[in-house]
C-alpha cells in the first residue's frame, strides 16, 4: 500500500552528512563483500586484491559513525542513546527490529568489529608475505563469510531506512535497499580496481574486478528501472525531475561500468587474451577514468534519491 502521491509529511533534512554516510557505508560494506568473494574464488593469486578490499573496508568504516554522530541535532555525545535506553525506569539496550535505523546502528557496530579484525588479519598475513594464504586458512574465510553478511546488510539497509518512512519517493518504492546494495558493490569493485595501482601484485584480479563491477551495474540498472516504475506508479515520479542532473551522473557511472564490462568480456574470451591478458592488465588512464566515473555515479545516485524525497 503506497500513499499514491498523498504525502503531507515534513522533510527530515537529511543532507550532506547522511549522503556521506550512505556513500561510505555502501563502499565499506561492498569492499568487504568483494574481498570475501575473492577469497572464496579459491585462487591464491587473488589474495592480494582480497587484502586490499579488507584494508579499504577498514579505512572507510570509522568515517561512518563520525558522519552519523555529526548529523545528530542534539549533539554527538548523545549517539549512545541509539544503543542504550536512558528513559528512567526502562534501562536496557535499545533494539527495534522493525526500525531499520535501530538495526543499522547495531549492525554498524558489529560490522566494524569484522572490518577491523579482517584488516588486522590481512596486515599480519602481509607481514609474512604478500601472496601467501590468509591467516588461519578456512577459519579466516568462514569469519569473512559472516562479516560479509554484515557487510551486505550495511550496504543495503540505508535504502530500506529511507523506505520505512512516510516521505514521498522513498516510501513509494521497495527497490532502494537493493539499489543501494548493487550500487555499493559496483562502487567498491571500482574502488578496489583503482587502488590496485598501489599494490601491483593485486593487478592479477583487476580484469575480474571490472567484470564484477559490470555485473553489479547490470543489476543496478534493472533495479533503477524498477525504482522509476514504482515511483511513477505511486504518482511521485515528478519529484525526481528536479534532481535530473544527479540521475544523469548516476547513469554516466552505470554506463562507464557497462562499457568496462563489454571491454573486459572481450578480453576474457580465449581469442582475446584470456587469463594471460588479465594477469598483465595494467591500470591505465582509461581504467582510472572508469573507476572515478563509477564512484561519482554511486555518490550521485544516493544524492538523487535523498534529494528527490525531500
Amino acid at each position, binding site marked *: *500500500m503506497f*500513499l499514491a502521491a*498523498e504525502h*503531507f*509529511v*515534513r*522533510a*527530515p*533534512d537529511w543532507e550532506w552528512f547522511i549522503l556521506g554516510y550512505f556513500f561510505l557505508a555502501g563502499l565499506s560494506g561492498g569492499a568487504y563483500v568483494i574481498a570475501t*568473494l*575473492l577469497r572464496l*574464488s579459491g585462487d591464491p593469486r587473488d589474495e592480494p586484491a582480497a587484502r586490499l578490499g579488507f584494508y579499504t573496508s577498514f579505512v572507510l568504516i570509522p568515517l561512518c559513525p563520525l558522519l552519523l554522530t555529526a*548529523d*545528530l*541535532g*542534539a*549533539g554527538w555525545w*548523545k*549517539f549512545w*542513546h*541509539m544503543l542504550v*535506553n*536512558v*528513559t528512567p525506569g526502562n534501562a536496557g539496550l*535499545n533494539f*527495534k527490529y*522493525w*526500525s*531499520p*535505523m535501530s538495526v543499522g*546502528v547495531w549492525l554498524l557496530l558489529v560490522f566494524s568489529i569484522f572490518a577491523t579484525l579482517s584488516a588486522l588479519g590481512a596486515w599480519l598475513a602481509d607481514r609474512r608475505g604478500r601472496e601467501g594464504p590468509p591467516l588461519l586458512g578456512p577459519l579466516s574465510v568462514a569469519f569473512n563469510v559472516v562479516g560479509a553478511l554484515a557487510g*551486505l546488510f550495511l550496504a*543495503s*539497509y540505508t*535504502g*530500506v531506512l529511507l523506505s*520505512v*518512512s*512516510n*516521505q514521498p519517493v*522513498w*516510501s513509494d518504492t*521497495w527497490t*532502494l*535497499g*537493493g*539499489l543501494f*546494495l*548493487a550500487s555499493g*558493490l559496483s562502487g567498491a569493485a571500482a574502488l578496489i580496481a583503482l587502488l590496485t595501482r598501489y599494490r601491483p601484485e593485486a593487478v592479477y584480479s583487476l580484469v*575480474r*574486478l571490472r567484470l*564484477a563491477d*559490470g*555485473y*553489479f551495474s547490470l*543489476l543496478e540498472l534493472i533495479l533503477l528501472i524498477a525504482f522509476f516504475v514504482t515511483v511513477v506508479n505511486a504518482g511521485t515520479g515528478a519529484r525526481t525531475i528536479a534532481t535530473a542532473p544527479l540521475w544523469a551522473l548516476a547513469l554516466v557511472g552505470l554506463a562507464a561500468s557497462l562499457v568496462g564490462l563489454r571491454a573486459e568480456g572481450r578480453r*576474457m*574470451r580465449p581469442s582475446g587474451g584470456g587469463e594471460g591478458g*588479465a594477469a598483465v592488465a595494467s591500470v591505465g588512464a582509461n581504467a582510472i577514468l572508469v573507476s572515478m566515473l563509477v564512484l561519482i555515479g554511486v555518490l550521485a545516485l544516493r544524492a538523487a534519491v535523498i534529494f528527490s524525497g525531500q
Partner: protein
Amino acid sequence: MEIKAGESYGFFTDTSVCIGCKACEVACKEWNQLEGNEPAFLADSFDNTGQLDAQNWRHVKFYDRVPDRSTTSGNGTAFLMMSDVCKHCQHASCMEVCPTNAIIRTEFNTVFIQQDVCNGCRNCVAACPYSVIAINQKTGTAHKCTLCYDRLQGGLEPACAKACPTQSIQFGPLSQLQQTADARLEALHAQGVTQAQLYGRDDKVYGGLNAFFLLMDKPEAYGLPNAENAVLPSRNNIGGYVGAVITAVVGVVAGLVAFRRRRMA
C-alpha cells in the same frame, strides 16, 4: 474535571465552529514558552504561522473555499478553518521508528517526546504523516504538542482547549469526547450538513486518534491522509528487505561468477 492517570485523554476539534481566532495558538505558546518564528508575510489567507513545527504546536489552518460565482442564501461557505495539532495516534508512526525510545506513551495515553533522551536523529520527522514534528533549532531535538503533559499531571486541562472561545477544541476522556462527537455529527447530518464527517474517531486511521476532528470536507482538503493512506512506515520493511536479500543473492552469485571465470577461459 478530575484528570486521572491510567485513563485516555484527548482533544475533539470541531472545525464547524472554529472561527480562526488563533487563541489556541497564543495560549499554547504562552504556556509552553514557545518563542514563535520570526514574523513573515505568508500571503496565504489569514494564516501567519504557516505550519505546525517546533514553535507552533497548534496551527489554525485556513482553506479558502470562496466560490467563484455568487451563491444562494445560506450557502456562503468561505473558509474551512481547523486548529491542527499532534494527533497522538494510537499507532504512532513516530514512536514506531524512534531508535532511542525517546517517544513514549504517557499515563494519559498521549504521545510525548522526552527531550533529555531525544538525540535529534530526525527519523520521527520523516515518519510523521501529519508533518507535526520538527526540530527545535536551539535544542536540536524533536518537538511537538505534549498535550500539556505538565498541566495534566497537575490536574489542569490543556491550555488550547481552555482558551478556545467557541469550544471548537474540547478536552476530556476519550470515551466521553467520542460520544460528544457522535452527537454533534448526528445533529449536523440532521440539519442537512451531509459533508460533515469524523476523522480519527474510530480505529481506521492509525488505530484511532486521541486528537480527532469533525471535518467539513474530505480529509485531504485539510492536508490529512485518508483512511486508505494512513499507513505506518513499517509497512515497507518486508518489501525493502526482500528486495535487498534478492539483490544480495544475485550480487553474490554474480561476483562469484566473475571471480571464477578465468577457469573457463
